[in-house]
């Protein structure tokens, strides 16, 4: 599964939407992110994660890549594929993210274009076995 952002400056942005999907044993939530204030604040995003009751929250708006792992799950902002201007960050390296779900294991591969070179990073997350 790949995740990337569609710009919100394009006509008729329907960014009120949120979506929850189930893939394998993981629940994913997708949301644009401009409603979560402060923008990019992980604690506030945490709240959204709890609200949607998902293991993985994918969000955007800031154009800044972030990946955060905590006991409840993973929060990912895949950044922006084109490296377009963002008021949030001066560092607009283009990036995107591929997530691989295998049983109870989630691996996030992050691809960033920094200085003309593609850098790849990896984040592992294992979901706790449900009790009972």
């Amino acid at each position, binding site marked *: 599964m790949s995740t990337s952002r569609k710009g919100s400056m394009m006509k008729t942005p329907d960014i009120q939407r949120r979506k929850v999907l189930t893939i394998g044993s993981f629940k994913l939530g997708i949301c644009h992110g401009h409603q979560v204030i402060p923008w990019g604040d992980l*604690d506030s995003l945490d*709240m959204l994660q709890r609200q949607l009751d998902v293991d993985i929250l994918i969000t955007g708006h800031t154009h800044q890549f972030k990946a955060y792992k905590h006991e409840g799950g993973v929060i990912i902002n895949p950044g922006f594929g084109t490296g377009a201007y963002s*008021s949030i960050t001066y560092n607009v390296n283009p990036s995107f993210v591929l997530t691989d779900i295998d049983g109870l294991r989630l691996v996030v591969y992050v691809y960033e274009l920094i200085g003309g070179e593609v850098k790849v990073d990896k984040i592992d997350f294992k979901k706790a076995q449900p009790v009972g």
Partner: protein
Amino acid sequence: MQNSIPDGFPSTNDQEKLLADALALVQHHAFYMHRALDNNNLQDALKFSAQMLGELRTSKLSPQKYYELYMKTFDELRMLEVFFKEETKRGCTNAYLYEEVQHAGNVLPRLYLLCTVGSVYIRSKEAPAKEVLKDLVEMCRGIQHPVRGLFLRSYLSQISKDKLTDAASEFEGCGGTVVDAVEFVLQNFTEMNKLWVRMQHQGPAKEKEKREKERSELRDLVGKNLHVLSQLEGVDLDMYRDIVLPRVLEQVVNCKDELAQYYLMDCIIQVFPDEYHLQTLDTLLGACSQLQPSVDVKTVMSQLMDRLSVYAASAPEVLAEFSQVEAFSKLSEAVIKVIEVQQDMPLVGAVCLHVALLTFTLRVHADRLDYVDQVLGACVKKLNGVGKVNDSKATKQIITLLSAPLEKYNNVVTVLNLTNYPKIMEHLDYGTNKIMAVVIIQSIMKNGTFIMEADKVEALFQLLKELVQDSDGSPTLDELDEEDFMEEQNLVARLVQMLTNEDNDEMFKILITAKKHFQKGGSKRLGYSLPPLVFSALKLVRRLQEQDKNNEVDKVTFSPQEQGSSTEADEANISPQKVFQFLLQTVDSLSAVPAPELALRLYLQCAEAANDCDLEPIAYEFFTQAFVTYEEEISDSKAQVTSIHLIVGTLQRMHVFGVENRDTLTHKATGYSAKLLKKPDQCRAVYVCSHLFWIEDEGGVQDGERVLLCLKRALRIANAAQQMASVTKGSGGPVTLFVEILNKYLYYFEHGNQHITNAVIQGLIELIVTEMQSENTTQDPTVDAFFASTLRYIRFQKQKGDGVAERYAAIEV
């Protein structure tokens, strides 16, 4: 013996029969001839061969059929030639044979036999080749009938071609020189051409087309002579220039026959080497202008130019030659002259000529932009009388003309230097102009060409006029296809990314130029064109900001001398303030569209950028405009919710505002939040506003009390929402708002807001539990899950180290 002028050839069916009969007769006479040959009977051989050749005296066969008869006879004559050779070995002299054959009764057979003997005669070297050939070529004048004469002379040409007194040939020397060989071929050629032209005037006028077709079939017989000339080793450039070409051209021009002129000019160009053409350009082009008006001279000249282009590409050394003979100026003058002289030339023809000349110029003189411009200029002159071009063929050619430099240079900036380029585009109709504009932008994109100067940007926009704005004659925007329009405008938007310069002053000039043109685009276009411009300007602001920062560092570490120079430079340079003025005006323009939501977003983007530059008044101004836009133009509920979030989210990040300004804006934001239409939206917007009073960054305000007030207000709204739902729907709504607010409480609790106490949190937890258990409340599994995960979170925090557990200790779940 009179050769009668026929009344046109009989029909095809008759032709078949006539040919069959003639072939049979040839066969018949040949049989007896062979018998005579076997018996070494010269007299009989001559008698029967003459009879056989008599079949070639017919006037009734069409050229194609005559050819078949001729070939059959030709084969038989080869046997006869062998016999003649044998005869001379048996004591008969060539001179004697040469005399004997002239006793044949009819002139045509006589001449065929004479040529055949002549072949043997020359080979024997008993007489000089040049004399025999001279005699033969003159004797052939005896046949003035076009078809018969052409084939006879063709026979002469065939048997003589290996016996010409070329340089280093065995027949040179006493036999003659190459000059004689040339003279012979030229004479034969001249006579053949005359015969060929004469065919045009035979027969009734209504059969003209048929005649021309028949003539076409014979043309290679004439052209062969030129080929022979080109193969002569002894014909060097000088001889070609001084003798061959002038004589050939003389015949071509004087014959005044359209078919012949076109074919022969083409022949000359094809068979003789390109270096010769280069050196005789004056002569060739001079002849072109003397041809009959109906001759397709533009194709001839195009062929010539194409050949020369290829020649130029073949080897770089020859390019010097081109300059030396001034090929370009001669060709361009010739083009102009031809167009002038041939008044009836259709527009597409004239443009085609210019296309060929341009192709030539781009291949041979690619570095001479002035030449390229000159060619375009000549085309402009031609188009000047025409206005907008209607003819689709001509239009196609004009597009080819305009695309050629783009493809050659792969760099629009080079093309922008051609002053005549836009002038040609003006003659295209609306649709074609747009096509060209798209081609130009695509070329920029494909080649990654950056346009780095404001005046080049200006020139570029002139070319893209029809895409960027409406003009007289363009269809109204309603008539345009929506999708096409969007595609085009997106293309223009993408173009903005390519207009850039690292020098800040120049970059600003570019922005101003682009904006000037976009302003003329009308409300439908602004929504596409202005956003990329805004972001381009914001990037410039960032760049200025970073350079200022570096200058600050420099000021601290470097000597006063350098300090002085950098401040001087700063005064001359563009400043962020100027760019923000530009940005304000640009975003303001969007009200004309109108596009309030877009404008709002852009105002906020600019506000953040101003914040980063520490420019408080400017940031405030952008917020003001954002609020005004919200108040006056955004009335859709959904849009309002989004807009409020954007405003609050942006405001929350501002560090540049002093207390007063901050308060004013915060008050406005919270006020609008509370006035959203739907209660849940109100509630969420209000609790989100709580973050305006709590800034994590150092020096940021952290007003715990006002945070709590906000959250309490949100709680009241949530309550009201519950009550309204129970009144209107008969049951309470879902408890989700309470749970959300609880989470917000937890957020501030964790971040150290003293006003959020255990008690407050405990109270809300109990409230939620009560509500959820109440019969009135709608059950909602998502809310249950949310609350459950919230409680889970609290329990988790109670386990944590670092003093977190202590804080959470008092909360019971």
